[in-house]
């Protein structure tokens, strides 16, 4: 069942799960690459989970610039708004 809205805390939990971190460490602005050690494969995993959960597709360039929780939240939100 796909979500049609995106709750930031749910998103935080999803990202924390993939990264194997406590949710507190996935702060709104923590940089995925520099602070949280996200590499290309982990970024791809996050994108696939987002796709399954929210039905949104990432482009290759969006994948390469997954930068923070806030950024991801905005991206998913805008894609859902576009689809609506």
């Amino acid at each position: 069942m796909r979500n049609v809205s995106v709750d930031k805390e749910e998103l935080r939990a999803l990202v924390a799960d993939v990264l194997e971190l406590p949710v507190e460490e996935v702060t709104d602005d923590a940089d995925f690459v520099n602070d949280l050690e996200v590499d290309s494969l982990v970024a791809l995993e996050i994108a696939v989970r987002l796709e399954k959960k929210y039905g949104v597709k990432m482009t290759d360039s969006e994948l390469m610039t997954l930068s923070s929780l806030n950024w991801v939240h905005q991206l998913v939100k805008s894609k859902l708004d576009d689809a609506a």
Partner: protein
Amino acid sequence: MTDMVVTGLGIVVPGVAKPTQALDPVPAHSPGWFDVAAALPGRGYRWLPPACQYLLAAARSALEDAGDPLAGLPVERRGVVVGTNNASMALMDRMDRTIIDADAAELSPLSAPFFAMSLFASRLSTEHRICGFNLTVNTPRTAGLDALQVGARALAAGRAELLVAGATEEVLPAGEPGRQAGDVGAAVLVCEPLARVAERGATGYGVVRTRAAFLVPGAAGVPVSPVDVSPVDVSTMDSSWAEVCGAESPSVEAVLDDSPVGAAVQSWLAAQRAAVTFTTARAGCLTPLRRLVGLLATGAVDRVVLTAGAEGNVALTRLRPCAANTRDPAGS
């Protein structure tokens, strides 16, 4: 022939807490027998396929047991050889069902690379900065012992000075024949040339030497009926035995199944006059290596471990005591 000294042992198998217990019968296991958070604390392990987790955990134990042999050894002088038959089977099954029922777009990227069974050894290399070489052997049933032969050959060719050799397996997925009795877990041995052991003042469990052979089921090139006990040509067993044992007749630890090849090897063994301990072979390549670990750990080092696969592969590993600096088995 290439000999290596075994200086470290590690094992992760249901019901086996340490290498000295590796000869105990393996109990039936339930999911959750392996606690990845306890064995591999920290990030980066939870999403690995189970056989990779077992392998990493067993390797940690073996390296610790060997007294930190990587210290001071340049990364390019370290090598890994891992044997496996079934490490990727459950994952490939899940991936295939996703592709059939939905689409490849739904595959998990973090686990997808592990459809290739070489990724298990690659992950082990990354864990311990092993840059000399990392090989995966996947010969049916014999891959664990073959890993020792392949690794020994590489050491003898000067491609590394230390070898982390092991085998890892996971339960087969539903629908695969042989699932009921499959290997699960990992065993790892740290192996070094004798000169290096002496140089670093380490102690060894024993010396190993491995030889492979192939028994042709039925006449070459002719399809073999599975119901006949087709004549299996065992004549090469004599020369293979001679190459690892010379004129000696050590006791044998035989890991065999009831296939025509297994039966033929069993008959050949009966005609030799060595004492034989039989263990029923399982789906996978781990059991022979597990038995080897147990023998080394308990000091039963004047042995041959022998295994054969239904498809014709045979491997023999001769264990001998170290000339000097032998490990005290009771101390491990």
